[in-house]
């Protein structure tokens, strides 16, 4: 589970630190830095996962505008394997050449080193913390990403695998296609590839059965999903049962309303998080949902997180979601005045306010 992040010199995040529980709700005005935290997590996931070179993932334009420092610092703390992993990445930018290189990349487990990449040289350490190979490495890649599993580096590769389980999404049903040409093992940012991702997930029959069961409760008339093969492509259809007949009618995924698609996506995400142990970073999940649909979904996600079966970081401005979640101390208030860095504090709801917390936020009274 992701426990802590530290960021310095990235957009509005300067000397910025945040610790996470199993579920967190990011609150605050627009431009306060909530999405920047998600962006950093997405970038670190991509970099450590070897999805691109440093300059493709970290742009020099992300340097904090009012600082002259050319170095960005990122730290992650991840709990797992009965210990704490600490990852540090320092990115050094050459502003004029629009280039970036790894100044240092360090990974430790319970304060003992697993990997050190500095001055273009990687120092590896085995699981028993004995000194391993030393070799030169490309300054523009993650040394962690290049490590493949061996019997003596299980601690390191566990971390790499765990970071790959961070998913950052802002589902947008209008962009989701109903045709799948190939399977995807991860969802894209707007879930454009939801159908292809579902194809991958539904290889696990348990997933498909449980999702169908849940959707039958929340989506009136829903029966099951089916794929129709057409050449090399698969068309995704949701079948709905006729009220008085023992038969169902199939609708292409694209024929469903935005709200129906969003509901399907959210329950699929929730179930996937449970089964794959993802850390789910979800930006404005309640968009497109009808009011009565929000609480039943968030109840399910909250329950999974409370039982440590999942981790969820949410950004939301919706009163329904805010008022439900803030019955627990999971709120983090982001704020930023003018051109100053983001600051965060826990949300404490005053009990005698007479109005729901969401209303206090709407009135700007929460932190007055």
């Amino acid at each position: 589970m992701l426990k802590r992040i530290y960021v310095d010199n990235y957009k509005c995040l300067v000397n910025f630190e945040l610790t996470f529980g199993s579920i967190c709700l990011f609150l605050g005005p627009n431009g306060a830095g909530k999405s920047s935290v998600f962006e950093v997590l997405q970038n670190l996931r991509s970099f450590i996962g070897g999805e691109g070179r440093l300059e493709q993932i970290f742009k020099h334009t992300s340097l904090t505008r009012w600082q002259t420092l050319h170095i960005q610092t990122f730290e992650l703390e991840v709990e797992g394997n009965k210990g704490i992993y600490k990852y540090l990445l320092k990115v050094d930018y050459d502003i004029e050449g629009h280039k970036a290189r790894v100044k240092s990349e360090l990974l430790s487990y319970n304060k003992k080193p697993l990997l050190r990449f500095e001055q273009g040289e990687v120092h590896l350490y085995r699981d028993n913390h004995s000194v391993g190979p030393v070799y030169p490495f490309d300054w523009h890649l993650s040394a962690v990403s290049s490590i493949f599993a061996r019997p003596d580096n299980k601690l390191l590769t566990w971390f790499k695998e765990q970071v790959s389980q961070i998913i950052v999404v802002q589902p947008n049903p209008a962009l989701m296609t109903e045709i799948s040409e190939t399977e995807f093992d991860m969802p894209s940012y707007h879930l454009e590839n939801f159908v292809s991702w579902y194809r991958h997930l539904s290889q696990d029959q348990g997933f498909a059965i449980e999702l169908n069961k849940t959707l039958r409760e929340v989506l009136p008339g829903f029966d099951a999903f089916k794929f129709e093969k057409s050449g090399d492509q698969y068309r995704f259809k949701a079948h709905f049962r006729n009220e008085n007949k023992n038969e169902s009618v199939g609708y292409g995924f694209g024929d469903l309303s935005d709200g129906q698609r969003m509901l399907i996506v959210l329950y699929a995400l929730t179930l996937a998080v449970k089964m794959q142990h993802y850390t789910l970073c979800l930006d404005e999940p309640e968009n497109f949902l009808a009011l009565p649909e929000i609480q039943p979904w968030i109840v399910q996600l909250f329950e999974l997180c409370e039982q440590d079966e999942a981790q969820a970081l949410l950004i939301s401005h919706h009163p329904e979601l805010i008022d439900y979640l803030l019955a627990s101390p999971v709120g983090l208030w982001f704020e930023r005045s003018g051109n100053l860095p983001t600051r965060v504090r826990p949300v404490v709801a005053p009990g005698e306010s007479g109005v729901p917390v969401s209303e206090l936020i709407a009135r700007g009274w929460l932190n007055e």
Partner: protein
Amino acid sequence: MSRYSKVVVLCEGRQDEVFARTFLVKCGFMVARIRFVVAPKGIGSGEKFVREQYPKEVIAYRSNRNRIQNSLVVMTDADVIPVSGRMKYLEDKLQDERQNPRRPDEAIGIFIPKRNIETWILFFMGQQVDEDTDYGHFNKQSVCKPYVEKYAKSRKQALPDNAPESLKLACSELARIV
């Protein structure tokens, strides 16, 4: 069947919510048909929140019961006062809002654990409990789930003699809901 909420649960905190949800789901209610109104975590009293909200929820129940088959579950701790005292607070609050007292045919169940919900949960876990001790909170609210499910399954059986009195009183309230 209406797809919208059929049971509203008004409660003091997350532990009450998990208890009620687990119990109701085991009794056959769908989680998507349960609406939770939980006191926000803060510096205020959960008991006061429930007391203030109670008449509003009763009005909502009464004004919609002819259209929708719904019910209201209220959970509030007795704390250091008798269950009857806490019940009277709620009745008085109804009266303050010029509402008639609860009638026997109304699906409004009021559950008042004494000293608090943890007392009932520990009893379900097999511990000897009394209703004066404050046993504190559990680290994880979900710890109660298997025990509440077990109790829900056997809810039609009589409680043992050593069950907390507040739990025995709650059984008559249960008949209003399930």
